[in-house]
């Protein structure tokens, strides 16, 4: 295409201006990439969860309610369920630090049947099952905390009155950084019962794996109906829906990011339009010559639009690259906040951002393009003479 070359030359004509516009768009779209990446991050758990057809049982009261431990066995006996474990959020302090990482009490004998996609060395799993005070951790968590196998990990309870004295016996690998530590639920419960605590016997939540994806809804309903009239009615949902609950807790995050995004996009359109208008104003004569030679208004319009789109697209590419680099950097230095690599996070939204850059180019180029297409050839040429 002959005209593409001409458009490209025009982009490069005032290198400084194009560069500044590209940088301006680049930095702003980098921010958009990060914000959208954060939203995508919220959906990762939910999307990921859909693959493994797990369900979560919690109390109708929410997290402060009780799900009796006896329910775990009853669930295991149910048709459609292949494995079930208690999964209690401990929320303890480690070295005076609150919420340094997630800690869950669970059943070592069944937990890898529920999270069948997680990998652990069989010898380490055995060690976890044999020792009440044993615990295992996500490999990336262990790396972050610089733990070695055999390390003692004391946890001070905040919600539970029983403090844990754990020993790290194994590391597991999950598709994404779970930033979690798993310990034996029965160790916690014995401790609580010895103190005669009201919280004993509570599994917190129950995670169960269904035999196939199709039966999930039916199974959830069956569980809730079974316990509906008991003292501890349950609310059972798919892991994806459970994940969504956490995403929902952040509130109007999407709306907020959308508002910020709109402001940024609008600002960018103004920035790009100003730059384009300056360029076209300087090129009045040239546009007149093009028209005199016989280029139609449409041709001129497309030249200008093409140029502005080129610039904003370059800015978009730069921004997306910069934003992804930032997210990846966060993933490396703070994987508890960005547990997912950009490669797993990437999706249609990146293409949409690029499309957004093109749209900004179109909209910002429109006014200068129409003006260029419309102004009179005679006036444009007169300026020369």
């Amino acid at each position, binding site marked *: 295409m*002959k*005209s593409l*070359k*001409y458009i490209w*030359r*025009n982009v*490069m*004509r005032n290198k400084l201006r194009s560069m500044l516009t590209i940088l301006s768009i680049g930095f702003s779209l980098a921010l958009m990439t990060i914000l959208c990446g954060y939203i995508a991050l919220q959906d990762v758990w939910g999307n990921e969860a859909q693959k493994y057809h797990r369900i979560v049982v919690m109390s109708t009261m929410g997290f402060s309610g009780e799900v009796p431990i006896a329910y775990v066995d009853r669930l295991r006996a149910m048709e459609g369920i292949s494995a079930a474990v208690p999964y209690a959020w401990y929320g303890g302090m480690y070295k005076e630090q609150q919420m340094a990482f997630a800690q869950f009490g669970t059943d070592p004998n069944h937990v890898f049947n529920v999270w069948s996609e997680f990998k652990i060395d069989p010898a380490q799993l055995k060690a976890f099952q044999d020792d009440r005070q044993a615990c295992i951790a996500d490999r990336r968590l262990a790396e972050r905390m610089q733990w070695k196998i055999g390390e003692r990990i004391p946890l001070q309870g905040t919600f539970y009155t029983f403090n844990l004295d754990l020993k790290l016996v194994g590391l597991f690998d999950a598709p994404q950084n779970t930033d979690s530590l798993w310990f034996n639920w029965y160790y916690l419960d014995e401790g609580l019962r010895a103190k005669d605590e009201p919280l004993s016997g509570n599994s917190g939540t129950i995670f169960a794996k269904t035999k196939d994806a199709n039966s999930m809804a039916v199974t959830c309903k069956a569980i809730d109906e079974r316990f509906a009239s008991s003292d501890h009615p349950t609310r059972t949902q798919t892991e994806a829906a459970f994940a969504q609950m956490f995403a929902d807790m952040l509130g109007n995050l999407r709306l907020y990011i959308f508002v910020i995004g709109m402001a940024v996009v609008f600002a960018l359109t103004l920035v790009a339009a100003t730059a384009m208008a300056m360029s076209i104003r300087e090129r009045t*004569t*040239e546009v007149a*010559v*093009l*028209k*005199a*030679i*016989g*280029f*139609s*208004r*449409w*041709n001129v319009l497309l030249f200008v639009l093409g140029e502005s789109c080129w610039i904003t697209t370059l800015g978009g590419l730069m921004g997306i690259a910069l934003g992804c680099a930032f997210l990846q950097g966060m993933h490396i230095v703070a994987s508890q906040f960005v547990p997912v690599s950009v490669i797993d996070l990437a999706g249609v939204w990146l293409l949409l951002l690029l499309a957004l850059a093109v749209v900004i180019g179109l909209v910002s180029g429109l006014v200068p393009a129409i003006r260029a297409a419309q102004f*009179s*050839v*005679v006036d444009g*040429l*007169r300026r*020369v*003479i």
Partner: protein
Amino acid sequence: MAANQSDALVVVNNVTKEFRRDSFVIPVLLGINLQLARQDYLALMGPSGSGKSTLLNLIAGLDRPTSGEVIVCGTNLGVSSESKLARWRSQHIGFIFQLYNLIPVLTAYENVELPLTLTRLTRRQRDEHVRAALEVVGLSDRLDHYPRQLSGGQEQRVSIARAIATDPTLIVADEPTGDLDAKSGGEILELMRRLNEEFHKTIIMVTHDPNAASRAKRIVHLEKGVLVNTNATPVGATA
């Protein structure tokens, strides 16, 4: 040597042109009649503000008359739409400007090729046209030079090559030597003579340089929007 209306390439019939600036009406052309035969070479002279560029713009299809008609190559320009005029110009008119008006970001070759991109020619045919045109103006060795790397005379020759590349019916030149030194100007005028005699191009040239005008076959004078002594034959004319 007034041509018959039937075989005239350019017919300007009782044309007036006014410009509006705010509430003022400025009459520029007051009833112009002019005819031009094929292969003619007309110099349009007159002092600044006489309306000669305006007349040239009308004939080149860049502007429309306030009244009267301009018929060039059989097309009545006054009634054509803007987009139609653009296409018409690309087929029939070659422009030569005082300040060359080359596109600074394109090479000599690409500048000449520019109007050809509006035609249906293949890439190869375009290449042939471009090389031929640059050959005519004697710049075959400057294909990849950018305008700023050329002298004024060379730039104007590229602009002439651009004007003839599409093999237009009519070449319009607005003060083609106005910005050049005597030597370069002489070369350009010689080139235009060749275009007229060897390549049988019809040319209209606006100039206020009598020397330049003397190279044309015919001279008309425009004064305050009116043509005077249209039949004056230039000294050096070979008619």
